[in-house]
């Protein structure tokens, strides 16, 4: 069972996306598509023929596979329902973030490959956001890692040293901003737009169609679920099982579902209640989150909790 944890992320990530969309629709007074809609969309895209730009090179064709592969490989590292995670041998939380970054690097290259202004714009903005997010995300993870005495995710999840202390709350708030930025949600990016001037993530995917688009979208859902899982592993590890017995797994799966539902609700709430920010206001949001992460670290050093 513990070997198949990552399959949960691969299989259920479109469902999580569907749940977020449904909750968002309900909060905005709409009915919204069913929670299984992302599966139908992916299936339909896989069946479709493709139109490719003749400007593109092999980088464009290789990118969907690389993005999907690297995200799935990153998903193997994260303990989902039990802290016994055999693939933890691959690396720690730093390795996880760098494996995700491989996907982003290639996605940005693919954005430039078709030779259109939209793709370049998307790539440029994505890399700029990454520059602002990365230090803040690392710093908030450092606080958790230092207090747990390890950067191994399963070990951070099993140690509950700083739960609900001031430094923990500060680090968590910085990390949530990081998740919003990384998954391309309002107020950083609007996932539902195809308006040229505002899109970041969608801009890079504009030239994709059919099977490639399906892979890119699916990888994006996976990245979202992966980051949510990472957040609950690091900041709310309560309830994650530390053995692999049947009843323990069932209980821990139930708790995991609740946590994911809570994260989905949080994202839907933020998306429904905020407007998208102007791109050049982002440094103040993300810089503010960096200060939170820094304060969290200082608090931990000064207060020891």
């Amino acid at each position, binding site marked *: 069972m513990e070997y198949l944890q990552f399959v949960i992320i691969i299989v259920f990530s479109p469902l999580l996306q569907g749940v977020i969309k449904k909750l968002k629709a309900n909060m905005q007074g709409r009915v919204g598509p069913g929670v299984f809609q992302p599966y139908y969309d992916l*299936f339909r895209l*896989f*069946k479709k*023929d*493709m139109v*490719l*730009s*003749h*400007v593109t*090179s092999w980088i464009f064709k290789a990118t969907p*596979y690389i993005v*999907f592969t690297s995200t*799935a*490989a990153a998903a*193997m590292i994260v303990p989902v329902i039990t802290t016994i995670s055999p*693939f933890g*041998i*691959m*690396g*720690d939380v*730093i*390795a996880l973030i*760098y*494996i995700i*970054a*491989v996907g982003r*690097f290639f996605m940005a*290259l693919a*954005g*430039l*490959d*078709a*030779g*259109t*202004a*939209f793709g*370049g714009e998307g*790539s*440029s903005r994505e*890399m*700029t956001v*990454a*520059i*602002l*997010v990365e*230090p803040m*995300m*690392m710093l908030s993870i*450092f606080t958790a*890692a*230092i207090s747990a*005495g390890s*950067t*191994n995710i399963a*070990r951070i999840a099993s140690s509950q040293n700083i739960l609900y202390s001031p430094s923990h709350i500060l680090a968590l708030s910085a990390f949530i901003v990081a998740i919003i930025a990384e998954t391309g949600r309002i107020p950083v990016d609007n996932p539902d737009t195809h308006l040229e001037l505002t899109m970041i993530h969608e801009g890079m995917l504009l*030239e994709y169609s059919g*099977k490639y688009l399906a*892979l890119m979208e699916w990888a994006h859902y996976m990245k979202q679920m992966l980051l949510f899982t990472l957040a609950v592993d690091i900041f709310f590890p309560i309830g994650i099982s530390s053995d692999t017995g049947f009843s323990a797994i069932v209980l821990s799966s139930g708790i995991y579902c609740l946590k994911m539902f809570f994260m989905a609700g949080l994202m839907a709430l933020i998306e429904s209640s905020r407007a998208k920010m102007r791109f050049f206001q982002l440094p103040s949001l993300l810089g503010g989150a960096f200060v939170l992460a820094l304060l969290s*670290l200082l608090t931990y*050093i000064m207060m020891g909790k």
Partner: protein
Amino acid sequence: MLVIGAVSSILGVLYALMEHDIKRLLAYHSVENIGIILLGIGASMIFKSHGLNSLAAIAIIAGLYHTINHALFKGLLFLGAGSVMHATHTKNMENMGGLIKSMPYTGLFFLIGSISICSLPPFNGFVSEWLTFQSLILGFQSPTITSKIISPLGGAALALTGALAAACFVKAFGISFLGMPRNSHAENVRESSPSMTAGMGILALLCLVFGVFPGSVITLLSPAVFNLTGSYGRVAGGGFIQINETISSLSPVAILVMMLIVFIAMVAFIFIIGNKRKITYADSWDCGMPSLTPRMQYTATAFTKPIRLIFKRIYLPKRDLSVSYILKPFFVKTIRYSADITPFFEKYLYMPAVEIVHRIANRVKLLQSGSLQLYLGYILITLIVLLVFGT
């Protein structure tokens, strides 16, 4: 040392981002990478001064490993840049574009170099940067509060550097190798001779090997590490590094193998679900306005514009817009736009130094009048001085 390393790595990569000359870009990245090496060495000095020898060993391994890696991928990238210059006769990447089609091998190897320098797995830069991160987090174990605060901040600086380097090489590779050729020179290029590409190929392969089997490299480093710190640091072998039982471990081999397994599963899945797809080739999306030209592509200047604006306190950008009108303000004849940045260390550090040297040189100029008699006089005076003081 740690602070100098952090500052120089961030500044190096920031100026590299604004550089569109492919060789000067790589040169600025050397500043960045030496900053990263200094982070490792600085952390090692902190540990050593507190007598934490085994931690000092880990940090020095990070520094030395990055030194080796830097030699490998920077060599590879300079060879790639040389090959590109040989083919396109320009160093300015705004005049390149689409080179990956005409120069596939150079493109592939330059890509591998870029991935390595951005420290992405499974290539070599990742391993040494991971080790540097670990030694900076371990900085928390040092007893003084200053180093407890500074070393995680060094880690944040390293993360910022990593993200900036990734942006920079997306620019360097994307603008010069991808998209449409930006002028006719870039259109008619030929791949460099096999002797040039083979050299790059060897270095690219080494980048992969050093990234996948870090344990073996660290074993080779251990005599030097022991001499410097009096400790061997960690147990490592083949494709596996472990700081110690509890702290953390990394296995690039496992990462690579798992990626391959996932890849095979994914291809099999796609094969089962939908195999009867046609691929049609068409133009890129042009908003319904026909004929996209290469001039409409995103340029390197445009790509780095957001970063230029966000870090404008450091770059001190200058812009110059001059418009000439046929009939003001509706019919524009020409628009000229130029933008530049001021490297502040040039303005506040190098220029004053140059100024002082100039001033001294101006004073000294009086001595050098060009008159032969005066020079003979100098020799005479020197001779007398030597005779008086020499005896």
